[in-house]
Structure formats: C-alpha cells, structure tokens
C-alpha cells in the first residue's frame, strides 16, 4: 500500500498511515482521534507544547505504547493488528530517543553490532563492517571503542542514529533528538538528520527546532491537547499559521520573552 512512489525516497522506504488513534493513560486521554498519513520518503515534523501528545503518538507507531483505538499501518505491517510480528516490524523502524539510550555496558561499535549479530544472526565481520560504515557516516568511526560514558551528548546521539541505521530501517522516528543536548552539539545531529532526509528516508520527527522543521520537513503537523490542530507545508504552518492555537504556540516558541 505504501511503496508506490518511486519518484521520492530510496527504494524500500515505508509510509505510515494513522487513522482515528486514541490513547489514554488512566483517566488522562492523551490522543483524541489522530489521522496522519506519511508518504514513503516524506519527512514530517510534529510540533506542539509538551503534553500535547506528540511523543506518545510517535511511540504508538512502533508500539512502544499500545493505542486504545485506531489503526496504524507501517509499510507492509498492520501495526495495530494484535497478531502482528512486533519484533519484525520494529526491525524496520529505527527510533532515536531524547535520552539517547545507548547501552552503557557496550562500546559504540558493540551498540551498533549487537542487534544485527544477536537478532539478525550476522557474522561479527559483516556486522562490524556495516557498523563502522555507519559510524563513519556520523563522523565517529575513530571513537568506535568508547563507551557511552566517554562520549559527549551529541556524540552519543550520533552513535544512537548509527545504531538505528545499521538495521537498515524503512522508517525513522526521532523523539526530540536534540532536546537533551548542549547547544553547540545540536547542529551536528541536525546535519546528520538533514542528510538522512535528503537521502530519501521516511522520517517522523518530534522537535522544537523550528529552523530544522522549516528547512527539512516536507510537512509540519501542529498538535495541541491530543488533536491535530493544523498541518501542511512547513512554510505555511510555521511561516503563516492559520489557527489561533498554532499562532499562539509559535509566538511563545520563537519569542519566549514576549514583546
């Protein structure tokens, strides 16, 4: 249903369809009927205040959270089908977390090889060659032997991206990937994400980086209190928002001290 757009994206990237998605934590309804379609090769940025449900939505896509109702399709996988092979689906979805979540007992290289070796049963040589290639692409091949405690935040996040890419995903999810970084390291991570987008990867990015959204996103979705308030081209949603709630949010983000 989703690989029929050869003009965009590298071969084999996946699209995402989200229909009527609801999610509650106890009495707290976080997602209240979300409909979003992401075409293969498209980059969609989710923006909105904290608590608006962006991260929960992202975590529903690879089923780290179980939605209460609705349907999600990722490439060939019916993500919300109770019988779906979750592990097989997740192998095609790379995820990058705000807190990096590198495995601290393993080196950067081993972080990138453990899943290919243990789950995909790749040989050590094959897995290490691929991992070193990915680490080189994020500029960290020379630090392959280091553990996460010996890497800066920005370096850890770049390793985390390389780790996700060694699985050859068809979709990448980014959950506020630069929110925990020192300001001077944000640029390196965003540059890698931009390159990945230009290479044709399908990406859903939860972010507060409006500059990145404007430059890289094909589409921007503004969420507030569990619903999609406004979506469209980045220029339109960020540059000329039509909804009062979007206008209010952007005013506060772009000019935190007010007038």
């Amino acid at each position: 249903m989703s690989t029929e757009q050869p003009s965009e994206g590298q071969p084999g990237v996946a699209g995402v369809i989200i229909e009527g998605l609801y999610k509650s934590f106890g009495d707290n309804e976080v997602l209240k009927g979300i409909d979003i379609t992401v075409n293969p090769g498209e980059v969609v940025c989710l923006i909105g205040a904290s608590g608006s449900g962006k991260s929960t939505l992202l975590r529903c896509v690879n089923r780290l959270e179980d939605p209460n109702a609705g349907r999600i399709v990722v490439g060939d996988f019916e993500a919300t089908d109770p019988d779906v092979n979750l592990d097989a689906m997740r192998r095609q979805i790379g995820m990058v977390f705000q807190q990096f979540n590198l495995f601290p007992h393993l080196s950067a290289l081993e972080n990138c090889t453990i899943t290919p070796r243990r789950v995909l049963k790749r040989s050590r040589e094959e897995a290490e060659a691929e991992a070193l290639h990915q680490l080189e692409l994020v500029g960290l091949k020379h630090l392959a032997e280091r553990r996460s405690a010996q890497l800066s935040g920005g370096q850890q996040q770049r390793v985390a991206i390389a780790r996700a890419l060694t699985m050859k995903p068809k979709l990448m999810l980014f959950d506020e990937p630069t929110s925990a970084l020192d300001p001077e390291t944000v640029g390196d991570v965003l540059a890698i994400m931009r390159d990945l987008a230009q290479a044709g990867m399908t990406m859903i990015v939860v972010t507060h980086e409006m500059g990145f959204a404007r430059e890289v996103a094909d589409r921007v979705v503004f969420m507030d209190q569990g619903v999609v308030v406004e979506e469209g081209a980045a220029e339109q949603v960020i540059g000329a928002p039509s909804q009062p709630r979007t206008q209010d949010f952007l005013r506060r983000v772009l000019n935190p001290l007010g007038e």
Partner: protein
Amino acid sequence: MALSNRERRRLSLGIQAGIFVAAAAVLVLLIDWAALRQSFLNIEPVLPMFPGIITTGLVNTLQYTAVGFIFGLLGGTLLALMRLSSFPVYRWIATAYIELFRGIPAILVFLALGFGVSLAFGWNLSTLQVAGSALAIVGSAYIAETLRAGLQAVPKGQVEAARALGMPAWRAMVSIQIPQAFRIVLPPLTNEAILLTKDSSLIFVVGMAGSAAELTKMGRDGINMYQAGLTPLVIAGFCYLLITIPLSLLARRMEGRVGSRASRKKAKKGSTSSPVTGGVA
C-alpha cells in the same frame, strides 16, 4: 592567637587520634598476654595441623562455597526473573520460596538435606552435595532479591531501546538488562559470597568424614586433639580470611573495570591512538 579553620580542624583530628591511641595503650597494658596466648595463640602444639588445614579444610570450604554460590547464582537469577514475571503464579512461587529460605535459619536447611532427604527418598548424599545444595538453596533466596533490585535499577529506556531495535523480550533481558543489573549488584553479590563462605561451616550439624572436613570442623577437632586452648579455631578463622579478603579485592577490581577509573584510562588511549576524522561536515 586565633586559629584558622584549617588549623582548628587539624588540632581536632590530632586530639581525636591522641585519645584513641591512649585508650588502645591502656587496653594493651591491662591485658594478661600470657594467658591469652596460652588459649588463643599457642602456635607450637598445633603446628601438626598444617598442611592439612590448608590442603583439606581450606580446599573443602572453597569447594562447598563455590558449588553453593554458582548454583545459588543460577537459581537466584531464575527466581528474580520469576518475581518480575507478568505471570502471577511465577511471582507467588518465587515470593514464597524467597520468604521461606530467607526467613529460616540456614542450619535447618542443612539438617533437612543431611537427614531429611535420605529418610524421604533413600538417597545418600555426599558431604559436597549436602553442603553445596544447602548453600545454593539459602543463597539463591538472598541473591534473588539482590538481583531483582538490580534488574529494576536498569533504566526503562534501556529495554525500550532494545525492543525498538527489534530485540525480542528475552534477548533484551539477556543481552541488555541482566548484564547491566550484574554490574549494579556486584558489591552486594560479593557480600553474599562472603556470607556463604562462612555459612559452609554449618555442615558440622550433619557430620562428615575427616577427608570432607572444612575449616571450622578441623578447628573444632583441633581443640580436642591438641592442648592449645582455642588456638586451632583461631587458625581456622585466619584461613577464612585467606578466602574472603582476596574475594573482596577481586570484586573491587571488577568494579573498577566497569566503573569510571578504568574507562577514563581507556578513553585516553582511544583519543591518542587515532586523532583522525572527527566532527561531521
């Protein structure tokens, strides 16, 4: 003359040390050294205990403890996983086991295995089997709780990252959660190994052949054999230290290796060996 803070602190520490030394000196003067040596450190008559106390006693203590600890670790890991299971029956079984064997004196477990098993099944267990399994049963109950705490101390994001990469739950447990939990609980596990070392002496309640005797048994027998008071037990006590102190040192080294000291050294090596490439364009 006014004293600076630093001088005042040094003076205070000096007085504390002085009081301590004075108290120790008084104690030393009060002690009847001759009598004490007669009953506790009368080395000459007990020299025939060597080398047997090492080649038999120490070796047997080590064996019983090692078997007990290894199986205790395996059983404890299993019990910890059962306690964290989503299947309630596993949780109940593990909780009942842990509460029972943590709560009763270890000596009862030795008695049950030494006498109960042969009565119930007609099996004749060797001393190594009785001591090893008794220590494993008791040890696994303690180790399970230690490990459970360690598993729960691993940040949730670790398992999420592993699952998001496509690892099945058991693989995330084996490759990500358990290795990190063991690093966290290394100090309390060392403690557990030391406690088991000393608990191996409880095998005396079952009795054993001379060739199977461990340190405490040999020390107790020595009291009757030589006219040297309690000296044989003191010798056995020192032999325990020969096991437990190297164990502590080994654990401290392992902690260091996974901790920051060793990693910083490694980092230095990493950065000097290949200062190439670097940041992204």
